[in-house]
């Protein structure tokens, strides 16, 4: 992909971002947006809707799109497997399990005081620690991959047990949570979200060179002086932070983390992770914002879950790119 084309895609982010801000039950003008940002009046419904509904949706869209795509790329490189994604380590399963406990068991600590998001965050944190613990103990990355899958199966089974005992309303509530949404985030959640997101991105900068070495194989990377085990732990740590955070606030969002890195590799035709990370960052944002824009645009006719839209527009698009590259 030429630099000019890439810059054009970068410029598309503010365009689609603005589209996202304006789509909804009513139109918003720029003077109102300015007022809401710099002179917020909580009694003005329009300002409230901009500041506490649409802006958080846009910001979390940017964070979730970029975070999932980057996590997917890291896991694909770490496991040298294009089918790996951000959820391969089972961290999202921890978030899902604790969200299920919060929504469906009636344990008052999780359901009342704590709420679904905090419960999911706790679950992601616990499962992140477990997988990090295993990565310290285990050398083989295949074993680590298997442990991630087993953690997913284990928590999946527990969720099934909880589902079998819950009532219809709770079941529906949980099912809806699993469909993903960018609308559950509040303005006051951002300090903590941004703190962890920026921390993950800073750590990411230090992994670019080791990632380029790991692509040619872990043994060769070790010969080149890369501390493979440390890099692995850092990669898992970054993925755990990003996927845990995003799953807690948005539910499990499908497809982005799997498809976007593969799409970027096809478009950029490089193994340079500086470009791949940048590409995943940009295309992850574009992909998720576009999906959410469609969800909002079609709202009055049909309420589509975000997960359905990401896969519905993503899958044919990726197939098309693959066919074009093969031709």
């Amino acid at each position, binding site marked *: 992909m030429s630099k000019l084309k890439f810059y054009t895609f970068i410029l598309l982010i503010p365009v689609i971002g603005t589209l996202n801000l304006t789509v909804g039950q009513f139109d918003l003008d720029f003077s109102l947006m300015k007022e809401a940002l710099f002179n917020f009046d909580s009694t003005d419904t329009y300002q409230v809707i901009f500041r506490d509904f649409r802006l958080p949706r846009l910001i979390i869209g940017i964070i979730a799109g970029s975070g999932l795509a980057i996590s997917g790329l890291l896991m694909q490189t770490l496991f040298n497997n294009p089918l790996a994604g951000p959820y391969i380590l089972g961290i999202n399963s921890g978030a899902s399990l604790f969200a299920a406990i919060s929504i469906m068991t009636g344990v008052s600590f999780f359901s009342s005081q704590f709420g679904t998001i905090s419960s999911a965050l706790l679950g992601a944190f616990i499962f992140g620690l477990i997988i990090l613990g295993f990565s310290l103990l285990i050398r083989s990355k295949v074993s680590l991959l298997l442990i991630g899958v087993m953690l997913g199966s284990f928590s999946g089974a527990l969720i099934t047990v909880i589902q079998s005992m819950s009532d219809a309303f709770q079941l529906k509530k949980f099912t809806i949570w699993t469909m993903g949404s960018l*609308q559950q985030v509040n303005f006051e959640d951002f300090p903590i979200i941004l703190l962890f997101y920026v921390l993950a991105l800073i750590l990411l900068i230090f992994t670019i060179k080791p990632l380029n070495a790991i692509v040619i194989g872990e043994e060769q990377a070790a010969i080149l002086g890369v501390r493979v085990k440390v890099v692995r732990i850092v990669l898992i740590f970054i993925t755990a932070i990003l996927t845990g955070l995003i799953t807690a606030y948005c539910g499990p969002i499908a497809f982005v983390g799997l498809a976007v890195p593969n799409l970027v590799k096809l478009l950029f035709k490089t193994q340079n992770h500086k470009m791949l990370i940048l590409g995943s960052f940009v295309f992850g944002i574009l992909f998720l914002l576009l999906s959410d824009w469609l969800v909002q645009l079609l709202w009055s006719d049909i309420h589509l879950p975000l997960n359905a839209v990401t896969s519905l527009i993503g899958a044919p698009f990726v197939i098309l790119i693959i066919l074009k590259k093969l031709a």
Partner: protein
Amino acid sequence: MKFLRFFFFVSLFLFSCKSTVKKEEGTKIGLIKYASNFKIEEAGEFTFLMIINPETNEIENKYFLKKEGQEDIQGMLSVSVPIKSIAALSSTHIGMLNKLNSLDEVLIISDTNYIYNKTIKSRFRNGLIESVGGDGVESVEPILYSRVNVVMFSGFGKPFSHQDKLEKLGIYCIPNYDWREFHPLGKAEWIKVFGYLLGKEKEASDYFDRIEREYFNLLNLAKASVKKPTVFSGSLLGDVWYAPAGESFNAKLYEDANLDYVYSQSKGTGSLDKSFEEILLDNQNTEYWLNPNSTSFTDLLANQSKMTYFKAVQDKKVYDYSFQMNYFWENSAIEPQKVLSDFITIFHNDIKRDDSLYFYQQLKD
């Protein structure tokens, strides 16, 4: 002579077996005032129960309620009344049977998690009642084992699981569409179905007449209030806010309670699905919020802190019935006057009366 009369009524039934509901000459339709999903037809000594599918407004099932000494009508489902046993698979059925003092006839229930009634719970613990489970894990084996006379189940336009086999064994499966009634008294009127099945039609009718009177007394009291508070209703599930539509059962209750329900002019008998943005736009300054599906503000705000923007939340004017969910579902259908009474207590404090609440409570901190 008896044969001729029998022949006459059988012919009458066969002619009346058209899909649409209409009164046939020579028959007397039992006085059903508000319910639209069942009819009772009395033709001389013969009584027929018709269940009407609310989707199609056509007769879904017609039963001959066969009294002692009467013979079966060929080709027709003949339920011998009074029935001695019943599977009551919805909480509202338990509430109605309780009002008729007929809990001893209940041998099968759905899921014990949805039961409030202490007698039913105690009988279940003592092994006198079996459960078929609920939420998609139903088993018909307890029904077969208990050989109940009738299975009363919530109708969804489909037969009950293994209905054909059960009916061959003389176990009749009757769909109950009380939950699809739009008038609060229409829902309560289904007690008459239980009355006819149990041979307690007079008790059922008397009970219904009493609550009808009480309901209209309260309705007139509410109309006398000088206040007509604004109210919105429903809760957020995922990204969708479900609110009662303007022609729904709940909207009718709000109208009868002299409330200014924000979506009273909307079309539809079910739910409106709206975005949170839309709800906030319409209701930021609405005085009261009903049915947020929470029992405390802590719970409400832990799951969605944006709720603080509603004036109703700031003023703590939020009420829900989910403090005793099973009690509400079991009794509110058969005691709509108590729901109305709750609304008058909550919304019309200018009317001097006792301030007891039956189902609703203000959300706790």
